[in-house]
Structures are given as structure tokens and as C-alpha cells.
């Protein structure tokens, strides 16, 4: 029995629920609808709505057929999506869920359903689909940009695809001029004929493009007539442009240009479209950059090659570790190596051995640490010849790495000339300064420029007394005669004159001066050179001669012999000086030759040791190999004695292998440049413990490490060798029956760090302590401990290479303490 109250409540609910509800007959009559339904389809009154034909609501009648079919088959429809017409002709998307209501006989009475407006969702999906299309276009353009298509073609493609993708009337790419004072339309779509390639646009806020360059953001214009950020350029007015957007191509601080689109009708570009345009512009920027780089690369490479090979100097390019990365033919010629050989080498290999040992990264150090861009050093020719060179360094940064461009100039000639000049000047001075006379030069103004002589040399007369002064300034009235002579000499004529001077003691001294013109290489007179001789004795002799006519002969003889004696003494002195100088030169030449020979001999010895030990490896490998095969697989063919002997062969072979490895390490050490870098001791000690794992394990050795390590610069390989050998030693020479225990510790002094390696082993008695660092010094027989006698020699060599020292404190049976002293800082050279 229907309850009228419930029925009315239901009716109210039906009418007011905010979901569109309806009932229709299968024939398409609307029986009932609620207010939400009314507003969904946009009709004004319920009567009007109920009067319409339901089929007429459907945009596509197939949807209606589908609706009926579903209800017929299943009795319901779940979330069908259809398009309906609203009253004003607008189309909306709805989601329809419906049931059919049947009577007891199973006949359909009506359909009952609800509609939800899903227009906005569908539109969003459409947008999404559009966005996907733009993404696809973008991706394809990105790939296109990666091909080796030319820049004009790339730009052309960009404007075409963008104009199509966004359905705009105009698309443009404006290139910023080199002077950055205007923009040029170099690619475009839709513009009047003849504009692309010629039309110019101002920068600044005179145009949209110009304004775009001033801002970081894409510039979107809905309507140019309302724009107030910049003025609309005439070119856009002429094209009846209403809307548009533009973006920067490239980085704001160095843009390549502006990319933009325009429409003749009003258009609001949404975020997707703005992003799309910006993405195209970014791809374009990348493409332009790549092409620029490509052109630069070709240019640079050609330029670089030409410069490099044709330069008058030897040139090398090195990395931070001084490895040679490139060299030109001049360098090969200078040093006597082929290019291929040099490219395997390090700057250190080019240096003479004494410099090689001292420096870390030579070029980098000089440049970075000492700020030297030009310095002189000694290179070594392949044939051992030493070549003084001047290195001029500049640094290059490329791809995050630093390289050095080094010009190597042979300065042998310069050195020789300098040397000769110094030698001849020294010789000249020595000679002049041993002469009794005073020798001087005057410039054209009559001022003293140089003054030499024994009196100057022994300090009787001060050089300053003469230099820069005229004879008149020095001699007063007596200078007058000098002036006359000087002006005569300047005309090219030598002059000799005598003059006298009263000394402070009131005695008169007589002088003879000869003044000759001094000429330059063009034979122009540039001054005068003079010799002043004290002739007082001669004058006195003459005077005496006059005064004592009667003692004439006697006197003359006496004076003459006195004079002669003096001259002889002076001559002898000169000769002695010259001989002495010759001796000295010979001696120093011999010394330098000897030093040279010694260094060559040393080098030869080292390379001999190296090649011997290296070449020994091959036969030893055969001996070891076959002995081992015999000892394992042919053992049963040997009698017990044979078995014992073959075991000896295997053992000795292995011992010899170790010996050779150590020898090689020793002779190789120092062949490479010693590098100085901050050391990670923890890491190095970790490696060493791994190296020695089996012997540590076998002897149950305990190693105590300090908590922290000193901040030392050094060569990792060398430090590794030092500690490897010291710890290995400490393990080897442990007391029988007592597991080795090793303590490492350090102390920092002002300029160096002391590091100790202490053990509880057998110790070394004092008389041997001096010797343990020598090569092949072994204090134990093979039966006791297997050692090669090279380990501690290696330790010392490694320490010395790093400007350090090693030593030992020990007494027999008390354990040993080895110490290593290493400089904290790189030593200045």
C-alpha cells in the first residue's frame, strides 16, 4: 500500500538531489526529470523539458541505440559516456547510468537513470591528448636537431613545425646581431615576401622580441592593443597581428635570438603552448650551440695545428702530472726523440737526473706554486747531452681539466754568449786592474764612464771619485788641459800630454796621459779612452839628471834598473794571472766533465741493473716452470734424493724471483718522477696489510696503528715501499715462538715528521746497525729467515728520494725501532 507521506518525501528528494535524474519510456518520452536534470540540459521549465523528444538530445543517435541495446541485454547500463545537446546548442559530455524497470510480465515500463556532467574531464583529456601531440613534435624536432642538418635548415624546420603545431598565422626566428644592437628575421612562416632575411627589429622595449631579451620569462600577448610593456613594432601592425608569444633562444646573458608566434585573431596561449614554444627554443639553442662549437672546433683545430707545427719554437702540451700530451716536430728535433716516444714520456724524463729527483710535478708546480711562467732549466738530449732551456708556460682549461702549454727554447747559444762575455769581461778586468796606470773612458761630455787600474783595485783611489765626473771636477785647474785633449780626441785624433799635480803633502807628481778616440761598430766616435801614467819617477830622474850632470851615468843606470825591475814585476804578475785563470778554467772544465761522466755512469749502471734483472726473468720463468712441473707431475719418476733436489730447485727459483722483483723495484725507484701529494696513510697501511695477509696470518702478527696520521706530502708508491718493507721485516725477524707485535707511531716537529716502526723481534746489535740499509746486507742465513737483502736498501732509497732520512735504534734481542724522517712541506728549491 503506498504511503502518501513517504511518496511525497521521495518526490522532494528526487526533485532536489543535485544529481540529474530522469525516467523515460523506451519510445523516448521523458516521463519525469529533476531540477539538476533541468539545469544540465539548460531548459527553463520542467514543462518545456518534459515536452522534448529524448532522441533529439543525443548528438549521435548511435549512442541512444547503444543505450537501448545495453539495457535490453543486461537490464542496466553502467557509466556510458555520451554527448548531449543543451537547449542553447552547446554540447556537453555526460556519464549515464540507467536501469530498466519491468512489470510482472517482464515488459519494460520505463528507464530510470542518472546523468553526470563530465564535459570538463573529457576536455582535459583532449587537452592531454593535444599536449601529447606537442610532446611528440618536440621529440621529433629534438632528434632532427641532433642530425648534421645545417643551421638554416634547422631554423626553417623549427618555424614550420611550430606554425603547424600551434596553428598560428606567423612564426619567426629573430637572430641577435653580433653587435647585439638589433634582431634580424632569418627564418619565418607567414610573413610578406622578401621579409625573411631582411626585416630588422629593434632591441629594447621597442618591440616584443626586444622586450623578450630583457626578461627571463616567455612573453605572452593576448591583445597588442592593450599591451603596455612595450610598443608594437610596425612590422606586426602591418601584418594585423593581435596576439602572440615569444621566448629567448639561448641563455639570457648571451642569447642567440628570439623565437615567437603570432595570430591575426585574438588568441590566449595556454601554459602547454608556452612551454612547448620554450622547449622548441631550448632545443634550437642547443642545436645552434652545437653547430657553433663544431665550426669553432674545425677552425680552432686547423689554426692550432698550423700554429703548433709551424711555430719557430719547440712546443709541448702537458697535463697536471707532467705527462706529455702533444709535441711538435721542433721539440722532437731538440731532444732527439720521435714524437711517439715523447708521447710516452713525462717532463721529468726530459730533465737531467739531479733535477728529476728534486721536483714533483715540475711544470704544474712552477706555474701554480711559484707563479713562474718563464723559467730556465736543464733538459737532457737522448744522447745524454745537457741542453739549457727556457720554458714559457701558459695554462689551458679544457673540459674541466687543466693543461699546460709549454714553449721550450734552447738557450745554449745565449748561455754560451753570456758565459763568454762574463769570462772575457772578467779577464779584461783582471788585466786592467793589475796595471799600475789608470785606464779610463770618457763619454762625449767628458764624464768618466769606466775606470780601471791597480790603484782602483787595491782601494787607493775610489772609483766613485771618478765616475760621472769630468776631469775639471776632479782636478780643478788641471782639468783644462784634459778638456782640450778630450775635444781633440773626439775629432778622431789621439793625443798625448803631460801634466802635474800638487799632492796634499806639497809634493809635485807628474803624469802622462794619452787619450784616444773610442768608436762604436759604425765607426762613430762615442767618447775617448785614456791611459794615465804616473811619470814622477821618470821626471825626477830627468831632473836629477839635470841637477847632477856629473853622476849622470851612474844615476841613469840605477834608475833604469829600478824601473826595469818594476816593469818586470808587473809583467810577471800579469802572466801569472793569465796562467792562473787558464788553470782554473781547465780545472773547472775537467770537474764538470767528471761530474757529467759520473752521472752518465750512474745512469748506465742503473739501467744495466734494470735490464739485467729484467732479462733474467725470462730464463728464470722457464727454470721455475719446468722445475715445478717436474716436482709435481713427474715426482714419482724421481727417487727420494731427486725429489729433494727438485724441491731445492723450486725453492731457489722462487727465492731468485723475489730477489729479481726487489732489484727491479730498487732500480726502477727514482726513474719515475717523485710525486708529492697529501698521503692517506690509513689507506696505504690497509693495502700493505692486504699484501702481507698470509704472513700476518701465519705468524699471528699484531699491528698497532696510531689513531691519526701526520699531514705529510709524499709519493704514495714510495711510502708504500717503505712501510711494506719495514713491516715485512718486522714480521720476518720475529723471535721464535713469540708472535710479532708491531707498533707504528709518529711525532710532528717544525719542519718534518718522525714516524717509528717498532717491533718485538730479534733486534740488531749496534755494530750492524750502520750496515742494514746497504744493498745485500743480510744478518741471517737462509735457514733462519728468507730475505733478499734489498728490502731496507729500498726503504732508504725511497726516503732519500722524498728528501727524508731513515735510521734504526735497536739492540740485540730487544726488538728494533726503525725511524723515518719526512719533510712536512715540499722543499723549496
Amino acid at each position, binding site marked *: 500500500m503506498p504511503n502518501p507521506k513517504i511518496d511525497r518525501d521521495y518526490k522532494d528528494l528526487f526533485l532536489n538531489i543535485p544529481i540529474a535524474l530522469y525516467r523515460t519510456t523506451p519510445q523516448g518520452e521523458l516521463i519525469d526529470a529533476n531540477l539538476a536534470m533541468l539545469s544540465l540540459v539548460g531548459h527553463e521549465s520542467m514543462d518545456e523539458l518534459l515536452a522534448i523528444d529524448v532522441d533529439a538530445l543525443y548528438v549521435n543517435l548511435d549512442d541512444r541505440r547503444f543505450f537501448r541495446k545495453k539495457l535490453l541485454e543486461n537490464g542496466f547500463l553502467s557509466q556510458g559516456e555520451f554527448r548531449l545537446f543543451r537547449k542553447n546548442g552547446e554540447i556537453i559530455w555526460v556519464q549515464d547510468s540507467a536501469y530498466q524497470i519491468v512489470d510482472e510480465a517482464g515488459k519494460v515500463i520505463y528507464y530510470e537513470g542518472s546523468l553526470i556532467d563530465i564535459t570538463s574531464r573529457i576536455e582535459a583529456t583532449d587537452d592531454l591528448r593535444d599536449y601529447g601531440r606537442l610532446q611528440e613534435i618536440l621529440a621529433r624536432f629534438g632528434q632532427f636537431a641532433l642530425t648534421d642538418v645545417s643551421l638554416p635548415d634547422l631554423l626553417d624546420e623549427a618555424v614550420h613545425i611550430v606554425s603547424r603545431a600551434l596553428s598560428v598565422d606567423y612564426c619567426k626566428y629573430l637572430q641577435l646581431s653580433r653587435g647585439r644592437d638589433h634582431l634580424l628575421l632569418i627564418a619565418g612562416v607567414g610573413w610578406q615576401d622578401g621579409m625573411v632575411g631582411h626585416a630588422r627589429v629593434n632591441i629594447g622595449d621597442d618591440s616584443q622580441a626586444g622586450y623578450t631579451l630583457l626578461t627571463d620569462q616567455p612573453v605572452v600577448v593576448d591583445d597588442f592593443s592593450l599591451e603596455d610593456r612595450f610598443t608594437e613594432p610596425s612590422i606586426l601592425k602591418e601584418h594585423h597581428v593581435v596576439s602572440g608569444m615569444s621566448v629567448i633562444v639561448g641563455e639570457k646573458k648571451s642569447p642567440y635570438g628570439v623565437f615567437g608566434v603570432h595570430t591575426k585573431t585574438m588568441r590566449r596561449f595556454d601554459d602547454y603552448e608556452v612551454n612547448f614554444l620554450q622547449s622548441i627554443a631550448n632545443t634550437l639553442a642547443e642545436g645552434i650551440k652545437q653547430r657553433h662549437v663544431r665550426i669553432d672546433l674545425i677552425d680552432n683545430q686547423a689554426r692550432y695545428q698550423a700554429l703548433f707545427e709551424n711555430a719557430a719554437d719547440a712546443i709541448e702540451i702537458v697535463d697536471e702530472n707532467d705527462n706529455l700530451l702533444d709535441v711538435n716536430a721542433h721539440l722532437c728535433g731538440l731532444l732527439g726523440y720521435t714524437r711517439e716516444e715523447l708521447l710516452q714520456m713525462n717532463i721529468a724524463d726530459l730533465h737531467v737526473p739531479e733535477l728529476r729527483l728534486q721536483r714533483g710535478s715540475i711544470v704544474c708546480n712552477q706555474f701554480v706554486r711559484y707563479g713562474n711562467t718563464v723559467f730556465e732549466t736543464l733538459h737532457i738530449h737522448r744522447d745524454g747531452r745537457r741542453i739549457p732551456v727556457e720554458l714559457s708556460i701558459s695554462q689551458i682549461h679544457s673540459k674541466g681539466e687543466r693543461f699546460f702549454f709549454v714553449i721550450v727554447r734552447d738557450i745554449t747559444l745565449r748561455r754560451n754568449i753570456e758565459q763568454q762575455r762574463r769570462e772575457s769581461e772578467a779577464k779584461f778586468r783582471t788585466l786592467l786592474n793589475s796595471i799600475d796606470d789608470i785606464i779610463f773612458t770618457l763619454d762625449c761630455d767628458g764624464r768618466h764612464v769606466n775606470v780601471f787600474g791597480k790603484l782602483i783595485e787595491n782601494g787607493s783611489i775610489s772609483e766613485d771619485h771618478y765616475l760621472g765626473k769630468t776631469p775639471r771636477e776632479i782636478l780643478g785647474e788641471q782639468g783644462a788641459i784634459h778638456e782640450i785633449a778630450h775635444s781633440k780626441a773626439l775629432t778622431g785624433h789621439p793625443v798625448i800630454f803631460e801634466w802635474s799635480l800638487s799632492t796634499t803633502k806639497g809634493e809635485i807628481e807628474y803624469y802622462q796621459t794619452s787619450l784616444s778616440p773610442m768608436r762604436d761598430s759604425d765607426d762613430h766616435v762615442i767618447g775617448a779612452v785614456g791611459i794615465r801614467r804616473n811619470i814622477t819617477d821618470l821626471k825626477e830622474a830627468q831632473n836629477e839628471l839635470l841637477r847632477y850632470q856629473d853622476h849622470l851615468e851612474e844615476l841613469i843606470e840605477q834608475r833604469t834598473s829600478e824601473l826595469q825591475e818594476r816593469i818586470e814585476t808587473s809583467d810577471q804578475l800579469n802572466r801569472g794571472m793569465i796562467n792562473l785563470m787558464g788553470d782554473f778554467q781547465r780545472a773547472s772544465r775537467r770537474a764538470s766533465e767528471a761530474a757529467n761522466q759520473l752521472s752518465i755512469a750512474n745512469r748506465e749502471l742503473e739501467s744495466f741493473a734494470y735490464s739485467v734483472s729484467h732479462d733474467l*726473468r*725470462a730464463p728464470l*720463468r*722457464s727454470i721455475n*716452470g*719446468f722445475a715445478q712441473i717436474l716436482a709435481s707431475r713427474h715426482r714419482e719418476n724421481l727417487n727420494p734424493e731427486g725429489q729433494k733436489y727438485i724441491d731445492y730447485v723450486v725453492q731457489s*727459483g722462487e727465492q731468485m724471483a723475489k730477489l*729479481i*722483483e726487489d732489484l727491479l723495484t730498487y732500480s726502477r725507484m727514482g726513474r*719515475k718522477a717523485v710525486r708529492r701529494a697529501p698521503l692517506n696513510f690509513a689507506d696505504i697501511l690497509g693495502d700493505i696489510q692486504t699484501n702481507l695477509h698470509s704472513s700476518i696470518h701465519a705468524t699471528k702478527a699484531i699491528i698497532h696503528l696510531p689513531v691519526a696520521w701526520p699531514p705529510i706530502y709524499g709519493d704514495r708508491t714510495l711510502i708504500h715501499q717503505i712501510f711494506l718493507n719495514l713491516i715485512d721485516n718486522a714480521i720476518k725477524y720475529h723471535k721464535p715462538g713469540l708472535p710479532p707485535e708491531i707498533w707504528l707511531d709518529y711525532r710532528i716537529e717544525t719542519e718534518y715528521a718522525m714516524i717509528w716502526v717498532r717491533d718485538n723481534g730479534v733486534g740488531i746489535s749496534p755494530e750492524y746497525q750502520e750496515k742494514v740499509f746497504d744493498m745485500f746486507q743480510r744478518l741471517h742465513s737462509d735457514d733462519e729467515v728468507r730475505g733478499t737483502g734489498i728490502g731496507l736498501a729500498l726503504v732508504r732509497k725511497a726516503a732519500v728520494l722524498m728528501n727524508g732520512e731513515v735510521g734504526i735504534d735497536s739492540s740485540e734481542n730487544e726488538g728494533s725501532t726503525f725511524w723515518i724522517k719526512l719533510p712536512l712541506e715540499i722543499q723549496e728549491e
Partner: protein
Amino acid sequence: MSIVLLVEDNPMDVALTQDAFHLKLPEVELRVARNGRSALDYLLGNDQYTDRELHPLPDLVLLDLKMPGISGHDVLREVKSNAALKLIPMIVLSSSNVEKDIRQSYALGANSYLVKPIVFDEFLDVVRKIGEYWLTINCRP
């Protein structure tokens, strides 16, 4: 069955390598070229090596460096500049551990550089590892 070409002039090293392969890689066929010239002839299929059925290209070349005449480096240079051969892994097996030799080998395209150990047990281990890595783990074209 993999084929390895050993290029080695020292007869004793040849014998040791054969022995080691026999022990550690019995399934590998070891062919030997006794100098650089015959290594190149074999690889290029010259003269008596024309028949690839009889003389197939190896899966791996073990190359000594120091050989009279055509050196290991020469062989490397030739092989790595030949389009038909350059994909064959070239492993230098040399007694030299001089930096220069190593750098030059890699510069010429060597795929690996191994120093011949002096102690035979270690050499056996090297041979085993060559088989394990280059013939088993490593993917070849």
C-alpha cells in the same frame, strides 16, 4: 670449442703455456704462431692459412711483445687497423712490466695486458683466469 692463438717466439714459453692450457683449459684449442709474421699470416689468411675451415679465426690472441722482426706492437697495430680482425680480443702476455710498453700496447688497442709471472703456479692461475674471463664471462661479438 674455443680457439686461442698464442704468438710467442720463445720455445720454452710456448711449452709452458701449452702445459698450462692443457692443465687449466683442456677444452681450449691452443694454436701457436712462432713470430709476428706468421701470426699476421694466420690472422689475415695468407698463403697456407687461406682455408678458414682448417685455420679458423681465433676467439682470442695471446701476444708476446718482444719478438724479432715484426714485434707484438706491430701485430697489434696491424690487427686493430683491420676491420675484419679488430674485434678479436688481443691480450698482451709479456714479461715486461715497463710503463711504456703497457701504455703503448693499450694505445695500439690491446684489450688487456698481463705480465707473465715468474712462478709457475701463478702462471697457471693467470691462464685459468684468462679462460674464465675472456672465454666464459666476457660477451664476444
